[in-house]
Each structure stands twice: as structure tokens, then as C-alpha cells.
């Protein structure tokens, strides 16, 4: 079995057995990226020199007998995480030449665990998009069908891992940006509870929704990577000061008596019938494992997308005010005065979708409109959150499709923002409520991956990983690799 066909546990075992060194493993993936990424455009930057240095240091740690499941494992980071010494663009012209003076907490924590950074993956500009088509660096292609989108905004991370150009990657999820691309590319993608993973050094989009998580080829791998990412951080004012459990310890837990809720609103007319069939087949497997399945209702589901498109743009318009052409980032040529400097630097630095969202947010927060838009949306957000609260009084986990259809074609929705927004219909509500959710691959439709979404109560990541892992013990969909990338 070639190195890129192995999961993180197998790679760690191979490193310890001396089958290959971290330097050899890292070089293997770097070579694969250089040979194959021209077809996908999943990376923005490759950090070859620093990766090989990190790998050499990891080999020394392994040789000294140091324990730690991630030592010497190479991964890719979404280009939203600040990396000292490696360009961090957030998919934007605004940050085309930005080299962060510090590491994001996620990056620093994984580095300390011995992880090697291969490079930075492509993404929708400032994480605003569901198809990876808003990137300044061009769209990413789905390795299962290169005429289709990989999803977004963590589309580069998803495509890279799906094509086995990296064994795992980090992603971020504000309205579905880990789960949706994981579903469309056949991966396991976990969005943890809001506050579980530090946001420090993760370029802010919508601060009350943003959360980082792992994108991997299995739930067991997601457990390993999340272990290295999660935990309290005094540098993030909304970081959760909750103990981090051992995510790998409970993976095999028995599911007899597990109560699964299926929200009827997630299986309505908007859902593709073939996708519905795949999801229902997976749920039938859970029945066989002894789980009890019942229908539930999340009655405010239809309001999630409208609520999100007030809250997220409002927060984005405030967060992105920092890009002013003064302290870092793009500055226009020959500004005639300060206002011209701001307006042209931002007008040139931001792409169309980012400008749209800044303007919607500015409008919603402007004098005379605040109550009708922002306040109203925050009230509806409470209703959406209460829907989940009531559901978790009856069930342990909620299951449904991650997306309403398989990967759509490149260019198919890029001219119609509202139709693009509606593609996140099943993922957005969990961000508004701050809940954790995971997407895992189930039976594909016409050769394209389909995701089953499992939503849990606050800080129930271990339970979600357990539920996901047990399905992966009785199915092989998570092991499938696109034929041309085997």
C-alpha cells in the first residue's frame, strides 16, 4: 500500500516501525502535490523547505522514542489560518502578499504535536462561498468530477484530501464550510461546538459562528486531529473553558438504544430523491446496530438561511473593516486622500462576493434598519436554537443529509448569489445554534459522493465521532478514492 493510501493511524504506525521517515513521507506528498495539483488547484502555497525541516525535526523526536500519534504526519492548512513565515491569503487579493508575523493557535498546537505543514489550501475568498469559486486564486475542481465544484469554503482542503494529496487538512465552518465540501468530496468533516477550537489567528469572517475543525478520510482520523486542535485558549475571548476528552477512547462504543432524530424539514421536497435514498440506507444501518429512529421537527429550519444572511454579513462588515490599506494588506497606488486610500484599497482588494456581503451587513446595521434586520435576526436565531434544545430533550443525535444534492457544476450557481446561499440549507442552523456537526460519506449517486450529517448537543464531539466511526466499521465509502487519483 502506497503512503498516500494510508490513514493517520497507519501512517503513524509506519513511522514508528521505521517503514519510512517523516522526511520520506513528507517528500512523497510534496511530489504528489507537484505532479497532480495542476488538475485541481487545491493549494495556494506549498511550503516545501519548512515542511522538510519540520519533518527532519519530527524524525529526531520519533528516534528519541517520544510518544504522540501526530509526530511526523504531514497535513495541509486552510489558507485562513495564520502561519508564520508562509503566505496567508484567505483566498483574497487583499492578502496576496501577506506573511503573518505569528502562528494561529491551531497551527501552533499542531506544530507542537509534531505535525508537518505541507502548504496552504485554496478557499472561497474570506470563507464566503459554497463552491470555492470566489477565490482570487481561481476555482478548485472536485477530484471525483473535475467539471464539478468541490464545495466551499474549505474546498481546497476537501479536494486535496479527497485526491490524497494530503492525508488530512484543517478547515473552518461558518455556515457549512467544513461539512458541505466534506460531503461533496466524500470525506469526514467535523465542525466542533462553537468555542471548542481557538479562533486566534484564524482570519475572522463572522465571529459568533466561525469554528475550525478537521477534514479527514475517517472518523478515527478526525478524532486524532481534533485532539491536537481543541482546547481552551486565553487569546480567544470566546474560547470554551471545558475539559477536552479523549476523542479516540470512545470510538467503538455500542450504539444500542441510541436515539436518532430525523427532522422532517430536512427530508422535504428540496432534497434530491437519490440523495435521500442514500441517507435513508445509512440510517437503516444504524437501526441494525440497535439505534432507535424517530421523526422530529425543527420548525424554524426555513428561517435559518435568511437569519444567517443578516448575522454573517453584519459581523463580516465589522470584521473586514480592519482591511484599510494602512497596517497590512493591499494598498492602492497614489491615494489622493485618506478616504480615497480606504475606498480604492478595499475596492481593488476585495472580490465581488465579499463586497456584496460587506454591503448587506453595512445596510443591515445602518441607522434606521438595525431593529428590522439585525435585532430581528438575532431573535429568530434564538428560536432556531430553541428548536434544537427541544429536539435534544427527545433524542441523542440528529441525522439528515448534509446537502440537498451531489456536487453541482462549476459555474452553475456562480451568477446567482441567492441560489448559492440556499445550497447550505441543512448546515447553517447548527452554526447559528453553535452546535457540533459531522458529515460522513454514504453511498454515492452516479459516482459522486453523498454526505450524512450527524448533529449533536453542545460538546458532544466524542459522541458524534463514535456514531460516525461505527458506521465506518460496517461501510467502505470513506475508503473510496477517485479512480484517477489512486
Amino acid at each position, binding site marked *: 500500500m502506497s503512503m498516500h493510501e494510508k490513514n493517520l493511524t497507519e501512517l503513524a504506525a509506519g513511522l514508528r516501525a521505521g517503514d519510512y521517515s517523516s522526511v520520506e513521507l513528507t517528500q512523497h506528498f510534496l511530489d504528489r502535490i507537484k505532479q497532480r495539483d495542476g488538475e485541481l488547484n487545491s493549494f495556494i502555497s506549498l511550503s516545501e523547505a519548512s515542511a522538510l525541516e519540520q519533518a527532519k525535526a519530527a524524525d529526531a523526536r520519533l528516534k528519541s522514542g517520544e510518544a504522540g500519534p501526530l509526530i511526523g504526519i504531514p497535513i495541509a492548512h486552510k489558507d485562513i489560518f495564520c502561519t508564520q513565515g508562509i503566505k496567508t491569503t484567505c483566498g483574497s487579493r487583499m492578502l496576496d502578499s501577506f506573511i503573518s508575523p505569528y502562528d494561529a493557535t491551531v497551527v501552533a498546537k499542531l506544530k507542537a504535536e509534531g505535525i508537518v505543514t505541507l502548504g496552504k489550501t485554496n478557499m472561497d475568498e474570506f470563507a464566503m462561498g459554497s463552491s470555492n469559486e470566489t477565490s482570487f486564486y481561481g476555482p478548485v475542481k472536485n477530484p471525483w468530477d473535475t467539471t464539478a465544484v468541490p464545495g466551499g469554503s474549505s474546498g481546497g482542503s476537501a479536494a486535496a484530501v479527497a485526491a490524497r494529496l494530503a492525508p488530512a487538512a484543517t478547515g473552518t465552518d461558518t455556515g457549512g464550510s467544513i461539512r458541505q465540501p466534506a460531503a461533496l468530496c466524500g470525506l469526514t468533516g467535523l465542525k466542533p461546538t462553537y468555542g471548542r477550537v481557538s479562533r486566534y489567528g484564524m482570519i475572522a469572517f463572522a465571529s459568533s459562528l466561525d469554528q475550525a475543525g478537521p477534514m479527514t478520510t475517517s472518523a478515527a482520523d478526525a478524532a486524532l486531529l481534533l485532539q491536537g486542535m481543541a482546547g481552551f485558549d486565553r487569546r480567544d475571548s470566546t474560547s470554551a473553558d471545558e475539559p477536552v476528552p479523549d476523542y479516540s477512547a470512545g470510538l467503538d462504543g455500542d450504539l444500542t438504544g441510541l436515539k436518532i432524530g430525523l427532522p422532517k424539514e430536512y427530508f422535504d421536497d428540496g432534497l434530491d430523491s437519490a440523495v435521500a435514498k442514500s441517507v435513508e440506507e445509512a440510517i437503516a444501518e444504524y437501526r441494525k446496530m440497535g439505534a432507535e429512529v424517530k421523526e422530529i421537527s425543527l420548525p424554524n429550519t426555513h428561517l435559518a438561511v435568511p437569519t444567517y444572511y443578516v448575522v454573517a454579513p453584519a459581523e463580516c462588515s465589522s470584521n473586514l473593516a480592519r482591511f484599510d490599506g494602512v497596517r497590512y494588506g493591499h494598498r492602492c497606488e497614489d491615494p489622493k486622500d485618506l478616504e480615497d486610500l480606504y475606498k480604492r484599497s478595499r475596492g481593488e482588494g476585495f472580490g465581488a462576493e465579499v*463586497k456584496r456581503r460587506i454591503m448587506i451587513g453595512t445596510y443591515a446595521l445602518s441607522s434606521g434598519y438595525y431593529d428590522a434586520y439585525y435585532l430581528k435576526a438575532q431573535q*429568530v436565531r434564538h428560536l432556531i436554537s430553541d428548536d434544537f434544545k427541544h429536539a435534544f430533550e427527545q433524542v441523542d443525535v440528529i441525522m439528515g443529509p448534509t446537502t440537498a444534492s451531489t456536487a453541482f457544476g462549476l459555474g452553475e450557481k456562480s451568477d446567482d448569489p441567492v441560489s448559492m446561499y440556499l445550497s447550505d440549507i441543512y448546515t447553517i442552523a447548527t452554526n447559528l445554534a453553535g*452546535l457540533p456537526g459531522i458529515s460522513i460519506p454514504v453511498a454515492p449517486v452516479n459516482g459522486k459522493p453523498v454526505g450524512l450529517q450527524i448533529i449533536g448537543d453542545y460538546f458532544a464531539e466524542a459522541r458524534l465521532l463514535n456514531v460516525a466511526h461505527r458506521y465506518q466499521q460496517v461501510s467502505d465509502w470513506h475508503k473510496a478514492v477517485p479512480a484517477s487519483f489512486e
Partner: protein
Amino acid sequence: MSLERTDVEKIAHLARVEIGGEELDAIASDLSNILDLVEQLSAADTEGVVPMAHPLHMAQRLRPDEVSEENQRELFQSIAPQTEAGLYLVPKVIDQV
């Protein structure tokens, strides 16, 4: 909700984003469509519902007002577009009297 070109110009000014005159109509149409989507919220009954500012209803953490970071001005200014003598440079904002 339908926005006109002048509305877009006003919002763009508030957001300090330059928009080319030829883009105004397309943006007005896109923003109007997004506001139509958002309009569904007005039908929701939110009488007496407390706005939700934080998913976990967390209180803001406080810390003692002590210096916790070292000065890294040179490092931070090394990535700035234009600096001089430790200052960030911008076009003149005060006219001479």
C-alpha cells in the same frame, strides 16, 4: 425590497468600498435579491423573544489589566505598506492653516 443605484452608492460609501459606475446596476439587483430572501424573517413571530448574541450564553471573560504581550512594533510594521520612524504613513488628513 428593491435598492436603487443611489442606495448602493450610499452603502458603498458607508462601507468605504469603491464601486465602479458600470457595476452599480448589477450590485443593486444582487443586493435586492438577497434582501428579498432576508425578508422572510418579517413573518416570524418574535414577540418577547430575547435576541441571541452568543451561542453558549457565555459571559465575557475578564482578566487583570496587566501587560501580557511584548512590544513587537518592528515585526508588525515590517508587513505594512508604508511606515517611517515607527509610524504608519497615510495621506495628509489635516490641511495647513
